[in-house]
């Protein structure tokens, strides 16, 4: 597998950092090389939040994502901030209400998915948007096996929410499958 760079963005508190940790942990459990980084400081408080994971078969030298293969944005602000920095023919995943510039739609593969609404109405847990996102990202990139992703989710969610979060993970994958139909 070639080096795959993932950037997840949203507003502080949506859990995108945890999302990237889960993906990294799952891929690492499958024997891949991984690094995970996140933005700290004032920008991580309330405003837009950014976290990254790189997965590769080979040793990863430079630790930061420069141009991601996949950008996930849960808010308009975070999309606007990071949309100009993408690899050629990247995948862009945005929450359904986010407006994506036409030129971005033209050169990248864009998925408009009801992640936040799904968390609230289908999973009935607003906090699960990041886990749905993990499901989406792994269904699109297959950086880790389903079993490892499920284990990584269970390692990180609060006790008593295991079932609901696994449901969120599967729902994320389902959103992608439906978009591909």
């Amino acid at each position: 597998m070639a080096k795959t760079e993932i950037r997840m963005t949203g507003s502080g508190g949506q859990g995108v950092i945890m999302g990237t940790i889960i993906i990294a942990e799952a891929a690492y459990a499958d024997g891949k090389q991984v690094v995970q980084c996140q933005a700290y400081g004032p920008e991580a408080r309330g405003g837009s939040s950014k976290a990254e994971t790189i997965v590769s078969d080979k040793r990863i030298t430079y630790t930061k994502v420069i141009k991601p293969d996949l950008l996930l944005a849960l808010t308009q602000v975070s999309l606007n901030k990071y949309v100009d920095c993408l690899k050629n023919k990247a995948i862009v995943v945005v929450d359904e209400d986010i407006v994506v510039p036409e030129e971005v739609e033209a050169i990248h593969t864009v998925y408009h998915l009801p992640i936040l609404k799904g968390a609230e109405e289908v999973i009935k847990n607003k906090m699960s948007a990041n886990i749905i996102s993990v499901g989406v990202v792994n269904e699109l990139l297959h950086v880790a096996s389903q079993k490892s992703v499920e284990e990584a989710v269970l390692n990180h969610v609060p006790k008593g929410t295991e079932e609901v979060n696994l449901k969120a993970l599967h729902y994320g994958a389902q959103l992608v499958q439906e978009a591909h139909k």
Partner: protein
Amino acid sequence: MAKRFQLLQGNEACVEGAIAAGMRFYAGYPITPSTEIAERSALRLPQVGGKFIQMEDEIGGIAAALGASVAGLKAMTATSGPGFSLKQENIGYAAIAEIPIVIVDVQREGPSTGLPTSPSQGDLMQSKWGTHGDHPVIVISPSSVQECYTECVRAFNMAERFRVPVIFLMDEIIGHLREGCELIPPEELTISNRRIDRNFNGTLAYAVQEGNYVPEYAPFGEGDKFNVTGLFHDLDGFPTNDNNITDSQERRLLDKIRMRRDRIEKWEEFDCDDCETMIICFGGTARAVHGAIEDAKEMDFVKLGMFRPITVWPFPEEALLKIIKDNKHLRQIIVAEHNDGQMLLEVQRVVEGRVPVDFLGKIDGTTITPSEVIEKVKEVY
């Protein structure tokens, strides 16, 4: 049992390495970007029969850790620049009173409170010269999460073998990076414990056996009564103004490190045998330099190499001089670091103009990128 392979932050791996090395006491005052070290120590030490104390400030943190070490425990404290400045007085105390301790400094940008959570390597000179007076110092700087584990073990080993303060000089790039880490169990590691010889030392805590440089006094509380002070002292630790004692003691303190450099120095060479441009860096900067070397290989570019001190103080100068002597293709050295040119000064001192030395530095709180390294190489080639 804990999993052998885990995804960890550099700060977390540092604590795991410390515990594997035998750390059983941590005292400190949390400060970003080192806070995870205090957090994980607070969680993990009670699980292995150790003690964690959050003190009233950074000075209290190192003071408590020194007390624990005199009493026989392997002790650590961690901080960032502002706290590192506060700890300097007691680092000197550890040096003269010959108390083993590991002090972690996860550097942040700028003087004073600076930029709290941004990468920097601006404390390199402070780690050597921060506390006053001639004093021995060992400083180790990791450039991966795995090295946070293994090199922290070595930091403890050095502290114990030489009874010195060892600075574990981290940066935010590595401290907050998550990577895979093999938690090598202690039985598979080399673990050094301070030598104790109650028959020889007894109450003469600072007596040293012939051919040795390190006293082997027993921990406080085991029966031998001696004094511990920051003043120059005689063999039982009581202050003295005797110039002969001062001279011999000061020289012995410095010789502890000077005469054992070969056991302390450690560095990485990458393509140094035949490179045209060699980049010298340490800590997290090495990741961008490594990235640049990879990129250069795909570009039909200048042949690049990297020389990375892992023990940054004492600086591995003989190793560097050997590369310069042996590599006939070498035409340029670039020192890359996240400061205004601190390792640069040391490299210039060692190289003495044998090869042109250039500099790539960054002090805006962002990281040097591989493409910036490539650009610099082009610019000076």
